[in-house]
């Protein structure tokens, strides 16, 4: 996978219709504090240096290398044992051409509860079958439950409540092999995987492994593979070989809309 700061392609794009504030140049976007293009940026970090004048200057130079000028150290603290902490403000020399930023997005249109059920009834003619799980050692079920459970999330019902979804929620700490086996057995149309623990990028490892297994099993074409979690973005999901990825704040209708529309698209 490419490092996350390089994702997003750079091709020309019309500046979106939402107006920028007066004086802002979409081709040269800079941070804003209280004056257009002042470049104001706040930074904080610790250094493995005891607090002294040279350490302070080291902090300042680091900020300089980051492309800041007019750097002010707002705060510094001696953490002890050879560490020190800094809060700095500076003005950023860099600009970004916003007009040329393009980001891949989930492109389905969002539908409501009734609409989704009706859509499946008419276009598929049978309930869609969905399997969900937290894989690996992840025990954080709240996210996947928000999407799948009856009670749902943010005022929306979960998929279990939809007459036109059949849901099998395997819960937490499910080994990828088990998930795959159960999905095959259940004849799942979509597999929903949650990953919340992300330390040392364990979520990326787990998700990539799952895709490999599904492909090795030869069922990749038969299921929609969807992942989600606080650090999942659609781009990351695509790069991992999933069909879609959903991040923080996702609600059930968003996921359901994607599943049904993408499922029907692939029927043709």
């Amino acid at each position: 996978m490419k490092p996350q700061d390089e994702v997003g392609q750079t091709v020309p794009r019309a500046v979106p219709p939402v107006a920028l504030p007066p004086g802002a140049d979409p081709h040269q976007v800079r941070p804003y504090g209280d004056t257009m293009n002042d470049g104001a940026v706040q930074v904080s970090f610790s250094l493995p240096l005891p607090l002294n004048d040279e350490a302070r200057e080291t902090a300042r130079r680091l900020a300089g290398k980051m492309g800041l000028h007019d750097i002010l150290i707002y705060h510094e603290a001696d953490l002890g044992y050879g560490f020190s902490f800094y809060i700095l403000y500076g003005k950023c020399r860099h600009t970004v051409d916003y007009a040329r930023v393009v980001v891949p997005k989930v492109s389905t249109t969002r539908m409501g509860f009734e609409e989704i059920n009706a859509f499946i009834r008419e276009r598929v003619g049978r309930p869609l079958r969905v399997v969900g799980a937290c894989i690996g050692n992840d025990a954080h079920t709240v996210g996947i439950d928000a999407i799948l459970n009856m009670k749902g999330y943010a005022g929306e019902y979960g998929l279990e409540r939809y007459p036109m979804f059949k849901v099998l929620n395997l819960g937490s700490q499910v080994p990828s092999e088990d998930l795959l086996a159960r999905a095959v057995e259940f004849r799942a149309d979509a597999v929903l995987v949650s990953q919340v623990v992300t330390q040392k990028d364990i979520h990326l490892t787990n998700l990539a492994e799952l895709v490999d297994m599904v492909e090795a099993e030869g069922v990749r074409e038969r299921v929609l593979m969807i992942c989600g979690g606080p650090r999942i973005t659609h781009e990351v999901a695509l790069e991992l070989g999933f069909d879609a990825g959903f991040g923080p704040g996702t609600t059930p209708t968003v996921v359901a809309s994607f599943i049904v529309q993408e499922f029907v698209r692939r029927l043709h």
Partner: protein
Amino acid sequence: MERKLDLDPAVIERCRRAAAAVADFVIGFARERSTVSIERATLRLMGVGGADAEGVPLVNRVVEAAAARRVLGRGVALSFGAAMAAAGEDATGTARLIASGRVQMTAPTPGEEDAARERAAALAEAGCERILAARRARDGAIGRLGEGERPLLYVIVASGNIFEDTLQAKVAARAGAQVVAVIRSTAQSLLDYIPEGATTEGFGGTYATQENFRIMRAALDEVSEEVGRYVRQCNYASGLCMPEMAALGAVERLDMMLNDALYGILFRDINMQRTLTDQAFSRLISAAGDLTINTGEDNYLTTADPLKAAHTVLASQFINEAVALRCGLPPARIGLGHAMQMDPWMEDMFVLEVAQARMVREVFPEAPIKYMPPTKHMTGNIFRGHVQDALFALASVMTGQGIHLVGMMTEAMHTPHIHDRFLALEATRMVMTAARHLADEVSFRAQGRVQARAREVLAQAAEMLDAVAREGLFAAIEKGWFADVSRSPGGGRGLAGVFRKEPGYWNPVEDRLRAQVIG
């Protein structure tokens, strides 16, 4: 107001009596005097605007001309009325002719006097009508939109550029701000004139000009409609141009004005005779326009010790109240200044602060206390500062304050960036929502730390007020009793602009306002 502190009403009464004596002296002193700025304010309300080619406001030119011709002692209105007859122009046109020396400021002859008076009185009447129109517009807008929960969340904008300020103000209003104060450029309070036009440069603030008032008012009216809640505008009736600022504010529908009997004296070294005289007139205007004034006691503890000098704040509040009442301001428009300036590392700081903040509410139950965040003990540690401000928000909602100046985590370092204000409002609203009815729920142990502290401060304030009444306000200021700062009656800036009213002094604006406000 539920009484949670068991304060002795007799001690409060004693404070009010002493403060009344002080205020009577101030008002008496002011009644015998006028200042160049009062006369300029009078001209402004009579319709004189604009500046000459050098950028000097015409009102300054006219008052200078009157002074040069020694007719200022009877008030600028009369000779200006006479000059209008000579000029055959409207107010501004006449002023322009006076500025260019083509018309003179002279006392009218006895034969001209009635006509001059009539003309001036008509202009004054029109000016006062503009104030009333603004007042009606405010009442209408608030009646229609409301203005949200108390305390009112008050934020500052201070980019130096009025156009950036409006952007920042709108973002703030959307984030929950209910009052937007445009902080003035550092130097402005020492200027003896008000700059003209829209301005885009300033130091630590944006110049207060009539045009800037108008631009901000329009922006706030726009955002008020968007957020469905009236957003108040605040500026300063303070410094050498205090009365003129009050006049422009009243006309341009500002809703609040920082206006204090002592701030300019103590913190800007403005002459005390000047400030106190200007004070009385400017408060009359605010009363007429139904503006809320915000007094400046919140500044005292930036120089004085917040523990030892807490009673000086309370004493000053009594004086500001007494002066304001005598200028026709009702208690509900007297936003007395109060601040939380204690060292956050002091044991029980929060406990003592709650005592003081609650005390001021119980002593002045109708006044919408303007409660100032910790500023003195803020540092560049924005994370710690954000928490200090959260404690402040809690103290505020826990003691039922009226106007909450939202603290900014970057207070020690820069005037707020756009997101500083956003984050500060978010945190403040969160704390206040979470503790919405905490004030209803808690009471304080009888004779405990909270009650004892409140009673101690009240008793000290009573002592001090008795002493001020005895020794006189001027002497008290000279002795450094307020904010640890000492000033002398003859020192400071602007004394030259004060003059004793001569027999026959006439000010149709003042008369008209006084009739409206005091009856």
